[in-house]
């Protein structure tokens, strides 16, 4: 058994599964010379004419460009530039109907030719003397992308570093009607072979296999003649069968190798280039003639003169059809590409691009439009025709059911959309269309799944971060709480005093210049304050309960009064009145206790004399002040953590406030005295009422008489009521 290479040398051909034999109809065009189209009025040049990314625009609207001038750059390796096919002016750069099945508008440069066809400077290369990099960049800069239909950037395939056994030149042209490559080979076989020489220099293959379908005897003879001097070039005539021009199918035909699933031909040492690409390479390297035009087969029975034309890239289809005597029919279809894989055009302004090999304008008799889709009879003609050995009717079944798992199990992705299955289907089911939709759905699903996965990961990371922060906070709080507790224990039984001292310290610390404190300190303080506020809140709630039970015994204003107070000023006034009355009562009670007050611990002694004096002076005013003070204190307690003030106990809170109080006291010593007395009285009462409670000391009745407020007792009362209401509300909402 001879080796594969010997078999190939001996001219052995293999076969691929399936395939069909549609009528070729190439005789319409393959006997006529290539006609050169006149330069059209406008050229529409889509900025992207290949698979990959578009280059950056290099020209501006209104600029004059020369023939062969690069219009876009090719910085990205997947980018190939577009050139001006003739000299002229850039009219506009706008979206224009694209030569794509979707016909979606794509950014297109509109060029107005000036008719001079003036070339830019050209620098032909001698490919025997220049290095591979120069050759490759020349190929890229000349805008060459696979001209067989896919439009893959040629310099990537030509610049492979993997060892290449076989370079296959695809000149099969298996689609009916199309004879563009046929004519190219008939007229320019020598140039094509030069292009192959350049590719051989770049890739260094063991052998070059030129695959030509056996319905092109003239082209095959021309190629054989042109290759006669080259030992390892083999022209192979393959039997006419669609789709033998498919990359995978031609590889199988010529080498009996299969491209493994998910791999590229290069992985099995094979590179395939279209014959038109080889021609374009030769032109680009040897003449510095970038890809500016291509041969297009214009065929169909609606044309008087079907023929191959050499059209500048960007020529609108209408110009091609007009040059061939197009007579439109009702329900006319104009197809770009062949009848098997081409797509219909919505209008004739669509331009010729690098991958356009055929414009087909058939009559309805010639290519009857698809009739109604009938039920699948499971005849399996599709499976017999499939070149990828798929089971099209199973795929149809699962496509209809949108079962993407099964579709993947049945290898939908291996469908090359050649259309052989739909061609043979007796029920005229548009199978390929079903597969395209299913493929798009699967792609969409995969994209969605990826997105969902990313979102999930993001969400989980965020959750973890939040949880970590929470834990850290909790830990910090616990540490602080423990520290405080220790401090309390250390400072003895009088926790109230200790608390107050701690608060004072905190306040002093806060009073220090902000920039001196570190962030952590601030945080710690804030935490401390929060903690205190929470404790305070709790105490207040308990205290409230106790007050409710003992309202009649004590003249303390109950919290119930506050519930009636609303933001409504009238209601507030009422509340204020009640508060005043209560305050009055409290003042009277305080009077009675005045003597006792003198015996209270140190913090109060400072002010007690004043209080003694003033209590009798104006009990009413004092009552108001007291009410205000209560309200303020309450409010302050609620918002402690924001303001940073911690004057919670009647006995100690006067101290931090002393500075400001002194001024007030000086102005109105009587008032201040009253307030102080009240505060003392209250503190005492409360102490009595909540004797069992350790926290009794921190009542929210810090008297902090404010000069502004006392000037307008009414306003103050309202404010006080409002404050109470607010405090209450907040307490409620926090409790709930």
């Amino acid at each position, binding site marked *: 058994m001879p080796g594969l290479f010997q078999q190939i040398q001996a001219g052995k051909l293999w076969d691929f599964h399936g395939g069909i034999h549609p009528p070729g109809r190439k005789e319409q065009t393959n006997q006529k010379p290539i006609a050169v189209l006149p330069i059209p009025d406008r050229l529409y040049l889509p900025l992207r004419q290949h698979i990959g990314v578009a280059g950056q625009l290099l020209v501006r609207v209104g600029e004059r460009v020369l023939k062969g001038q690069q219009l876009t750059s090719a910085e990205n390796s997947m980018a190939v530039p577009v050139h001006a096919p003739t000299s002229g002016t850039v009219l506009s750069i706008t979206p224009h109907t694209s030569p794509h099945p979707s016909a979606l508008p794509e950014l297109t440069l509109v060029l107005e030719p000036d008719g001079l066809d003036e070339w830019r400077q050209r620098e032909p290369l001698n490919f025997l003397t220049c290095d591979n990099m120069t050759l490759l960049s020349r190929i890229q800069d000349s805008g060459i992308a696979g001209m067989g239909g896919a439009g893959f950037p040629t310099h990537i395939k030509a610049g492979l570093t993997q060892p290449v056994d076989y370079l296959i030149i695809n000149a099969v042209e298996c689609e009916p009607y199309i004879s563009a490559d046929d004519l190219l080979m008939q007229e320019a076989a020598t140039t094509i072979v030069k292009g192959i020489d350049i590719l051989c220099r770049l890739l260094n293959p063991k052998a070059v296999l030129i695959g030509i379908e056996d319905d092109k005897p003239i082209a095959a003879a021309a190629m054989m003649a042109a290759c006669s001097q080259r030992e390892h070039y083999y022209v192979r005539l393959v039997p006419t069968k669609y789709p033998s021009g498919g990359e995978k199918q031609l590889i199988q035909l010529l080498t009996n190798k299969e491209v493994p699933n998910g791999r590229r031909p290069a992985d099995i040492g094979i590179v395939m280039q279209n014959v038109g690409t080889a021609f374009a390479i030769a032109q680009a390297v040897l003449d510095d003639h970038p890809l500016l035009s291509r041969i297009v087969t214009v065929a169909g029975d609606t044309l008087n003169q079907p023929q191959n034309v050499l059209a500048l890239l960007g020529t609108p289809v209408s110009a091609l059809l007009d040059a061939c005597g197009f007579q439109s029919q009702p329900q006319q279809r104009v197809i770009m590409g062949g009848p098997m894989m081409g797509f219909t055009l919505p209008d004739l302004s669509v331009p010729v691009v690098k991958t356009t090999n055929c414009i087909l304008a058939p009559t309805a008799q010639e290519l009857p439009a698809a009739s109604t889709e009938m039920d699948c009879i499971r005849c399996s003609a599709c499976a017999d025709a499939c070149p990828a050995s798929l089971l099209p009717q199973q795929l149809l079944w699962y496509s209809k059911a949108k079962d993407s798992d099964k579709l993947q199990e049945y290898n939908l992705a291996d469908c090359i959309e050649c*259309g052989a299955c739909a061609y043979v289907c007796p029920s005229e089911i548009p199978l390929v269309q079903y597969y395209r939709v299913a493929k798009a759905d699967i792609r969409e699903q995969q994209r969605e799944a990826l997105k969902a996965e990313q979102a999930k990961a993001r969400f989980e990371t965020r959750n973890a971060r939040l949880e970590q922060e929470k834990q850290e906070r909790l830990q910090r709080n616990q540490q602080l709480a423990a520290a405080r507790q220790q401090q309390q224990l250390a400072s003895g039984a009088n926790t109230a005093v200790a608390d107050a001292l701690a608060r004072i310290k905190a306040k002093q610390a806060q009073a220090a210049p902000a920039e001196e404190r570190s962030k952590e300190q601030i945080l710690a303080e804030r935490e401390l304050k929060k903690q205190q506020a929470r404790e305070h809140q709790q105490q207040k709630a308990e205290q409230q309960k106790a007050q409710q039970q003992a309202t009649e015994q004590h003249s303390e204003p109950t919290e119930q009064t506050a519930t009636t107070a609303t933001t409504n000023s009238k209601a507030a006034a009422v509340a204020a009145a009640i508060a005043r009355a209560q305050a009055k009562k409290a003042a009277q009670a305080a009077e009675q206790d005045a003597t006792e007050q003198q015996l209270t611990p140190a913090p109060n002694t400072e002010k007690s004399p004043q209080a003694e004096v003033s209590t009798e002076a104006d009990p009413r005013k004092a009552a108001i002040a007291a009410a205000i003070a209560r309200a303020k204190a309450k409010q302050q307690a609620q918002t402690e953590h924001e303001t940073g003030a911690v004057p919670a106990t009647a006995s100690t809170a006067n101290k931090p406030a002393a500075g400001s109080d002194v001024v007030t006291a000086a102005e109105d010593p009587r008032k201040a005295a009253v307030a102080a007395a009240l505060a003392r009285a209250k503190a005492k009462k409360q102490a009595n009422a909540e004797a069992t409670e350790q926290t009794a000391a921190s009542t929210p009745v810090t008297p902090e008489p404010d000069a502004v407020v006392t000037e307008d007792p009414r306003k103050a009362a309202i404010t006080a009521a409002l404050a109470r209401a607010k405090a209450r509300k907040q307490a409620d909402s926090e409790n709930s």
Partner: protein
Amino acid sequence: MSFKIASSPHQHNQRSTAHIMRLVALACLPGIAVQAVLFGYGVLVQLVLAIVTAWVSEALVLKLRGKAVLPRLKDNSALLTAVLLAIAIPPYAPWWIIVIGTAFAIIMVKQLYGGLGNNLFNPAMAAYVLLLVSFPLQMTQWLPPLSLQSVDLTPLDAVCSIFTHYSCSGFSLSQLQANIDGITMATPLDTLRTDLGRGLTLDESLNRPVFFTFAGTGWLWVNLAYLAGGLLLIQQKVISWRIPLAVIGSLFVLSAIATLAAPDTVAGPLFHLFSGGTMLAAFFIATDPVSASTTNKGRLVYGALIGLLVFLIRNFGGYPDAYAFAVLLANMAVPLIDYYTRPRTYGHRPRSELK
């Protein structure tokens, strides 16, 4: 100017379902002709009855299902079912046999499963089994070839006996079944079965007049005619060669082995191939695309399974011929066969190498 938008491919081979069904029905013609000439014109009357019933039933159900009637009638699938059932039943069976059978095939077996392409079972064979089980007497009254009959039957006689159970000259079916000597003659398969059951050897049985050399008189020609029609279908690429070859091949091999092992009690391969409905079943019934396996390997398995079942039922089962049962049983196995015989996709490793 706006242009028509269509999806590729824009070209079609113009061979429609209707065309395929028509070709299959036409390929039956040689067999039908031979049957009519050798066994009388009853088969033609049955054909007319069956086709009319099929069309009426199909139209009725399609109407009920709210589907367009005409395009589906035109696909010729109901016609083909009717033809296959009509040539499978005894040519002189009473008219209501074929009417019940065809209506059942179209309405129950085909349309109630979702219409063309969705039925699990071959409609003609399911109907045949229904008739055979429900009306065993009528379904086994096969007349001997005309050459062996005591009374000459005219075309009018066929009509009369089918509609009135009596020929125009007043003979009942059982009378017609009797030969010149007054001995009732069944089909060769039936005769052989009975003889072997009575302890006769194969050679003794084959000496009877219903046999002609290695196969039944008349039946040999009918089978050859269907073979010719079937080969035409293969040549026209309407059916694949795999199913017929597998059916015939497996029956041939099995009966050859069996006859070598027990030459006196088991008929040889040629007898099996050219008796009963072998060729009709192998080329026209087992190849029904809807209910057969769809993969190439699967078709071989499916055909071989039918051959095996026919061999077993003919030689060891309770019925002289067995294609209807064999085909229905194989139909049941089709989803499984298809699943395990998927072809290797281009560029993929064989399934056995996966894992």
